[in-house]
């Protein structure tokens, strides 16, 4: 029984020495490992938050550019519409001018046609008058008057000789 007691005591001391030594030797490195892990986790968290903020920034920018693009697009559309309107008005004005020119041309044509018709009616009238006088003279000229006519004409001819 004595020997067993010293052995147990020796074992206990040995055990505690070992525990102490191991603990002393490994405690710091293990702590360091824990620290490092904690540090790494903290860094990871920081990076994650940074990425999140960056993403939020990008999202914000994207929304802004989208908005500005929309605005630009609407401006372009507005400008195109205004130009189209201008063109339409220019075309209409042009057409009006052309129509006016056409009407003046037609009016001028009508004037010349009117004058031509007028002249034609005058010519027809003159022709009619001449043929009437021819017929009248032919029917009313009896022998005595005819001889008198010859005498008068002869006098005129001799004058012109």
């Amino acid at each position, binding site marked *: 029984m004595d020997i067993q007691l010293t052995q147990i005591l020796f074992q206990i001391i040995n055990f505690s020495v070992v525990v102490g030594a191991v603990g002393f030797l490994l405690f710091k490195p293990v702590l360091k490992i824990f620290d490092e892990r904690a540090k790494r986790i903290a860094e990871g968290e920081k990076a994650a938050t940074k990425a999140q903020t960056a993403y939020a920034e990008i999202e914000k920018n994207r929304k802004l550019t989208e908005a500005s693009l929309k605005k630009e697009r609407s401006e372009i559309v507005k400008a195109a519409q205004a130009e189209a309107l201008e063109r339409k008005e220019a075309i209409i004005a042009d057409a009006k001018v052309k129509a006016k020119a056409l009407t003046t041309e037609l009016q001028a044509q009508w004037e010349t046609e009117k004058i031509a018709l007028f002249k034609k009616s*005058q010519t027809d009238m*003159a022709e009619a008058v001449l043929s009437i006088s021819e017929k009248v003279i*032919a029917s009313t*000229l009896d022998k005595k008057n*005819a*001889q008198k006519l010859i005498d008068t*004409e*002869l006098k005129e*001819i001799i004058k012109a*000789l």
Partner: protein
Amino acid sequence: MKTTTITVIATSALELTKVQVETISTAVKKKYDVSSVTIEKVVNPALIGGIKLTINSVEFDGTVQGKLAKIRSQLLNQL
């Protein structure tokens, strides 16, 4: 050089009287200074009235038809 004869063609609507022929002859003799005048008489009723003298391809138109033609051409030219 003096031409001694000249031919006159007298165209009328009806037959000319002797007096008229004489008048023509004397007038032509005087104007053209010839010794004798030959008068050819042509009757053309289409002339309606009056007389036309043709002397050496120069014509003196005193017919009604001729006057009407003159009126017509002058009138139409002026229109």
